């Protein structure tokens, strides 16, 4: 492009992502999470041994974006599907990618028991506190007071229960070796999230057990906010219910640089 200054690409397209346009809304966290997963697989060089299980949720079409083998799971059952795959191919890398409705409502039993069995699976958990795909219904993770189409006056603990913290529940299981909560709403947080994903992947490669990375992720569409406000809402409000950080870590790994 230039003859005078040598420019080097420092940020580009990860191989583990197909070059298809995504269907995600402007400002949605799903596509960031996709990229982070893809970058980690690239860096570990395991794209070609990866088998992924997307959710039923906004990321149902993730197989159009991820550039590795993928199989659809019925809503909520990604962990069970992943278990089946991993038991057939213990030497392959298996990950699930799931929303909060998928992983923490209809899939609660599958999630808890995959964790409890210590399945060698890495779970990427997109917590956007709402049902995205179906149009903004309350999620188990919807925070108190937050509006949803099925919680018209905002979530009320008496009527709708309190937001669920499934990562903390998973931490109770012996088979879960690592659980961390990150957010996708700043350069720093995104980089942290990537490190967490990397660590989770290592847990599987090192045959330690089950691990989960929960990513607080904006859904501007259903929160009815411009992307920028949605990002700010996570940083200012959502983290009060879901504090960021390591929830469980018995990996024995030294802290990554």
């Amino acid at each position: 492009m230039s003859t005078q200054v040598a420019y080097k690409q420092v940020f580009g397209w990860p191989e583990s992502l197909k070059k298809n346009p995504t269907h995600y809304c402007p400002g949605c966290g799903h596509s960031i999470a996709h990229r982070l997963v893809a970058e980690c697989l690239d860096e570990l060089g395991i794209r070609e041994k990866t088998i992924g299980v997307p959710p039923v949720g906004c990321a149902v079409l993730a197989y159009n974006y991820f550039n590795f083998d993928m199989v659809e799971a019925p809503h909520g059952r990604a962990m069970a599907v992943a278990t089946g795959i991993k038991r057939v191919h213990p030497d392959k890398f298996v990950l699930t990618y799931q929303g909060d409705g998928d992983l923490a409502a209809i899939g609660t039993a599958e999630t808890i028991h995959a964790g409890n069995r210590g399945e060698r699976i890495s779970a990427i958990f997109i917590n956007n506190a709402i049902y995205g795909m179906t149009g903004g219904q309350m999620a188990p993770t919807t925070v108190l007071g937050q509006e949803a189409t099925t919680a018209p006056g905002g979530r009320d603990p008496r009527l709708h229960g309190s937001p669920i913290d499934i990562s903390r529940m998973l931490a109770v299981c012996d088979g879960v070796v690592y659980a961390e909560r990150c957010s996708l709403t700043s350069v720093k947080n995104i980089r942290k999230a990537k490190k967490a994903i990397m660590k989770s992947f290592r847990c599987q490669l090192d045959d330690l057990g089950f691990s989960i990375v929960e990513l607080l992720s904006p859904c501007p569409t259903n929160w009815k906010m411009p992307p920028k406000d949605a990002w700010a809402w996570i940083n200012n409000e959502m983290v009060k219910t879901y504090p960021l950080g390591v929830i469980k870590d018995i990996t024995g790994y030294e802290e990554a640089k």
Partner: protein
Amino acid sequence: MASEKVLMRGSDVVGEAAVRAGCRYYFGYPITPQNELPEYLSKRIVELGGTFIQGESEIASINMVLGASAAGGRVMTSSSSPGIALKQEGISYMAGMELPAVVVNMMRGGPGLGNIAPSAADYFQATRGGGNGDYRTPVLAPTGCQELVEMTFLAFDLADKYRTPVMLLGDGLMGQVMEPVVFPDPLDPDSLPKKDWILDGCEGREPRTIFSMYLGQQGELYQHNLRLQEKYDRITENEKRWETIQTDDADIVIVAYGTAARIAESAMEELRSEGSAVGIFRPITLWPFPLPALRDVATKAKKVAVFELSLGQMVEDVILSVGERAEIYFYGIPGGLIPTPADVVEFIHSAVRGDEKVGRRIEV
């Protein structure tokens, strides 16, 4: 090598036949009357280096099956009626995704929790797809332990051949009965034909995806369904199986499958000894239903007597097969009783007389 004759319980027979057919993955959740099958496999399959997981539920289990099948494993699950009801979504997905697997239903009495006595009241669910959408699963209905062996092998083969879940339909009686059986030589799973559609990491090839969702606005789902239908037509064409017993000279043919057919055969022996020309038509595949064969037999006999361990499910397929070509009588025992040959003898007496003392005449 083929085994000697051994005395074995039906459930164990299915387990042993499965591993000999190359099955190395089993996922299931306990439920009476089929627990002996997972119990058998929990030991046997693990010895062979395979995977046995007792899932946290029937739903988890069928979805583990889905995953294992997508990954290329010969895989099986089993349950009994209410548990099979819970697997319907998963089966529908697997049908849509064209994933092979064997699903065993050792039926029990229903509806709801019912009880564990033999029953055949899940016929509709099995043959019409209790899940959502236009799909069918081949349904094999063996009778007795030796046939359990053959049908288990066949189930795995049909599943792989047509890339579809296949149902093996038995009941508690069949699972509990012990009979002498001979097993064929065990297959080495590695010797099975390679599948070129499975997910095992995309090394050296393009990534593959397996799914049942077709969003395209150009009728992709429509096309997908037509493709499936074509496959179902092929199965209907090629895979119908049935047995006839002494139908050649029969004035009345009992139509029954599974345990009911066994009971009916005892009844037939008694009736024959009384001098009645009674035969049996036994569908072995419930879907595809052996419609043309039954049509022929019925047309000749002029009278068919449908005996079911349900209040009338297979009888619809009999009507669809026979129409007005023969008189159709029906007698059903709903789940909850172990039926006896004596019941059937009475029914046939009624049907021969043409009255409705036991059972009833079906108007077509």
